[in-house]
């Protein structure tokens, strides 16, 4: 009897868990039994594996929205979309990826640098399936690696931060010192110091991608220590934005996506990732018979990265600041400006 209830409780939690973890975003719920080859021409089945949740207002949500945009553009009946969330642990993710592959999904996107190795392991077993992950640059025969040049937007936001700070201190709320975050922070630091050498950039890491409370606390400490313009990446950053929004006269600069909704009077500008363009490119390549092997770059030069100002705060940014940012952007696009990256 008591065993029974215990199992019931466990099963209940598991049901709740999976109900929450996997969302069939397309109306057709059951994965079709047909082989991928036959359906390929008309319908493409895409699976997305996310480290956090698809509504995290950051890294994961930006990719999810990119996929939704693709689905919108190609037609709902043409794209079958499945999402698995909360798979920050690469081993758990591996199980989900394998499952999708054997269910006949055509393109499986594992959205994080940490999935590189699992994909390397799984991909050879499913030679007809395309896999993708990023941030990364090592592709495989049927693996795409996508690679946002986060340092470009970081640099531009750094220029803006240098022009906007009054206290002469800007703060970075970093997650874990790896991948995308490091590139972004490098760009940001260079952007600040090349614009105004006197401005201090203080980079700190919380040690977590998803601890919004911790990120909020770090932002508060940054502000207590004098910073008045802050930035930071990954989904934990939303906690920091909220904390900054609490204090008038302090600003936040976003990356991953436009996060101004969280604090409309605080977020000045954002580097937005246009994943839909990258996903469309992968679909196109696949149609032409290229299942992987490419290192796909997101950058300002092809418009896959974009700098968005918050309309609401447009008048708070002086014209010379915008001009300086625009100038830097043109230099980046033209290749005149090289941003240094950490050596491996």
């Amino acid at each position: 009897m008591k065993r029974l209830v215990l199992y019931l409780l466990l099963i209940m939690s598991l049901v709740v868990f999976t109900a929450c973890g996997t969302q069939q975003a397309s109306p057709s719920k059951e994965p079709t039994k047909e082989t991928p080859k036959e359906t390929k021409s008309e319908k493409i089945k895409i699976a997305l594996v996310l480290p956090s949740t698809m509504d995290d207002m950051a890294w994961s949500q930006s990719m999810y929205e990119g996929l939704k945009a693709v689905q919108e553009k190609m037609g709902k009946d043409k794209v079958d979309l499945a999402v698995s969330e909360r798979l920050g642990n690469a081993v758990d993710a591996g199980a989900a990826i394998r499952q999708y592959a054997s269910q006949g999904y055509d393109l499986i996107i594992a959205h994080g640098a940490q999935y590189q190795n699992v994909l390397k392991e799984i991909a050879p077993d499913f030679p007809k399936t395309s896999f993708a992950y990023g941030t990364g640059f090592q592709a495989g025969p049927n693996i795409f690696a996508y690679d946002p040049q986060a340092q470009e937007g970081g640099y531009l936001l750094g220029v803006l931060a240098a022009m906007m700070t009054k206290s002469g201190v800007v703060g970075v709320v970093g997650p874990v010192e790896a991948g995308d975050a490091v590139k972004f922070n490098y760009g940001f630091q260079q952007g600040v110091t090349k614009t105004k050498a006197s401005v201090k950039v203080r980079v700190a890491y919380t040690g977590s991608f998803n601890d919004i409370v911790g990120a909020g606390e770090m932002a508060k400490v940054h502000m207590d220590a004098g910073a008045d313009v802050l930035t930071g990446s990954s989904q934990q950053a939303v906690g920091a934005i909220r904390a900054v929004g609490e204090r008038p006269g302090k600003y936040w600069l976003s990356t991953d996506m436009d996060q101004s909704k969280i604090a409309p009077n605080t977020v000045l500008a954002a580097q937005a990732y246009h994943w839909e363009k990258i996903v469309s490119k992968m679909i196109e390549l696949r149609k032409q018979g290229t299942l992987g092997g490419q290192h796909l770059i997101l950058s300002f030069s092809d418009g896959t990265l974009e700098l968005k100002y918050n309309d609401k705060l447009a008048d708070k940014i002086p014209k010379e600041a915008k001009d300086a940012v625009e100038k830097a952007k043109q230099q980046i696009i033209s290749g005149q400006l090289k941003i240094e990256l950490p050596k491996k």
Partner: protein
Amino acid sequence: MEHIIQQGLLVGVLATGVRLATPFLLAALGEMFAQRSGVFNLGIEGIMMMGAFFGFLVTFFTGNPYFGLGSSLIVGFLMGLLMALVSVTLKAEQGISGIGLYMFGWGLSGLLFRLYVGGITSIPGLGPLHLPVLSDIPHIGSILFNHNWIVYLAYLLVPVAWFVLFKTPWGLRVRAVGTTPEAADTLGVSVNAVRYQALIVGGVLAGLAGAYLTIGQANMYADNITAGRGFIAVALVYFGRWNPWGILAGSLLFSMADSFQLWVQVMGITFPYELAVVLPYVTTILALAVSVGRVWTPAALGRPFDRGSRG
């Protein structure tokens, strides 16, 4: 200039640390009652998540953080009751039930968030409480005494918990059923009822700890908001040797170390960040390791009570 910063650093570390300790203190004091009564509740993390979520949800809908707070307490109560049902009445293995409760809390809060909120949203939080004299002390006052009232409440609960545990009949019963339930039983104390009560007190405090995260600290909600704080609270109960003052010491040590590393990083003092982020854990473990003396544990911890089984 440097001098001011140095002074500011000390005050800053203290003020941040005092604030950071709040959720640990609340959750660990609650867990202390549960463990004192003989039940090891590993589900604190899940209760905190549910408390955090419902505090957020109700505030989100009503705009009033106090309604949110109230619902966190209710949810904490119910989660404590659920744990009691499974571990006390059904005598399920406590470690496993705790993990089940944690998964249940995480899963359900995530699901409900998706259903009823559907995206990151801000809510109004509890503002700082102005303390008549203390907050007005020049310089330090505005930093040290500028917290919301849950923070003060958490510290106030330390002597209160001590008093309840050692000076009231209920506290006596809790201590007895966690050590020698058979003896308590022969004195007409209902072992299971006391364990229910202790688990519910623990649940309510964990719910409050969760509410503090959403309406006292972050003013928003995101998946997995507790990020392991509940598990740390369980460890702090061991650190504190099941005593409120010990738990206060542990929570402060952990949080001060955390605050210190935050400030060190933010002030740009050269220090590898990898070491900085583990500093609170390392400090706490070291303190535990060097503190000598035989460790006392509630003798009946983890053991369901069954009258027929004798000693």
